[in-house]
């Protein structure tokens, strides 16, 4: 309750933000020419290129690691924020615990970034494997011919 009154400024700020968006949308609606939609206008804009296929494709799964990293940094930031806003004098134990906490998470992030190239299906690797398989097949063929 007390806290809600303290958050008055946030509400004023939120109202200003909403008003800004509403004014900008209304202004653009008033200023823009109102012409009918056609297929040229509604098609996906790809820097002047003719779009091929739908815009929504499924990305490689490896990119999910970035989201995990983001969530982990997010949680770490939330807990460090708790420590940073407390004005009371922190004890030595808290400092060591904070250092260990950050070290653990940083080690995890470093491990994930180091292993990330190994999780990506690179074209070069695929090509190498394909060529190896092709060479093997050809050598088997020549052996069979002999």
């Amino acid at each position: 309750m007390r806290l809600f009154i303290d958050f008055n400024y946030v509400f004023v700020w939120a109202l200003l933000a909403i008003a800004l968006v509403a004014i900008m949308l209304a202004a653009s609606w008033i200023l823009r020419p109102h012409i009918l939609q056609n297929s040229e206008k509604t098609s996906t804009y790809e820097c002047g290129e003719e779009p091929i296929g739908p815009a929504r494709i499924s990305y490689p799964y490896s990119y999910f690691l970035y989201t995990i990293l983001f969530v982990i940094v997010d949680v770490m930031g939330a807990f460090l924020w708790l420590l940073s806003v407390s004005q009371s004098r922190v004890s030595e134990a808290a400092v060591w615990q904070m250092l260990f906490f950050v070290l653990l998470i940083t080690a995890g992030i470093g491990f994930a970034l180091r292993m990330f190239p190994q999780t990506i299906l690179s074209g070069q690797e695929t090509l190498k494997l394909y060529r190896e398989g092709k060479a093997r097949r050809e050598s088997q063929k020549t052996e069979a011919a002999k």
Partner: protein
Amino acid sequence: MLMQGLEVLLEQAEFFVIAIVVLGLAYLALEHREITYAVFFFGFMAAAVAGFYILLEAPFLVGIQIAVYTGGISALIIFGVLLLPRAQDSSLEIFQTPRRRRLGLLLSAAVMLLSAVLAFFYPWSELSPVSPPELPQNIQGLAAWLWDSHGIYVEMIALIMLTALVGSVAILKRMKAEELRPLTAESHQEPAGRKDTAGSGSASQPETAGEEKEVGSE
């Protein structure tokens, strides 16, 4: 005295406003056809739930709620949408029969009614509000409690997140091995593939040598 009564009335009004906003956004998040819009409604709903925590005077939970739910979980779902193949024109599953939908509505209404009845008849007034809670209310006390005397909890959180990272890397490596299996099916060539990416500096040389060999054979 009048001021206090006004404050209580204001608190109740705030609670009802937040509750209506949360329920409306939750309904939109469930019912919107486009999953991306549904994710955004979910994020706004999570931010509105933070209002409850403000009312309960729990500022740390407000921060966690906005940082983790509005920021993290929404981003996680949006990334999931990006990664998944496009199915059924990117819409959420629509109930085939109106009967199943009505059944679901009935079930959720029953659960809500039950919890409302329990909350209504629970003897809240008999609880002793004077006893201070274990966790200190203010954020400084909470910081001292969590980081000074109960640091093991924070380290456990760090370990859990470390486990999530290692597990995601392991899953991604397994998926890559599965995708490469058609190419390596004839013989076990996986170690060679791994070695190639491990040392990026030394890996370029054998590759070019292999290409030269290929050119020579042709």
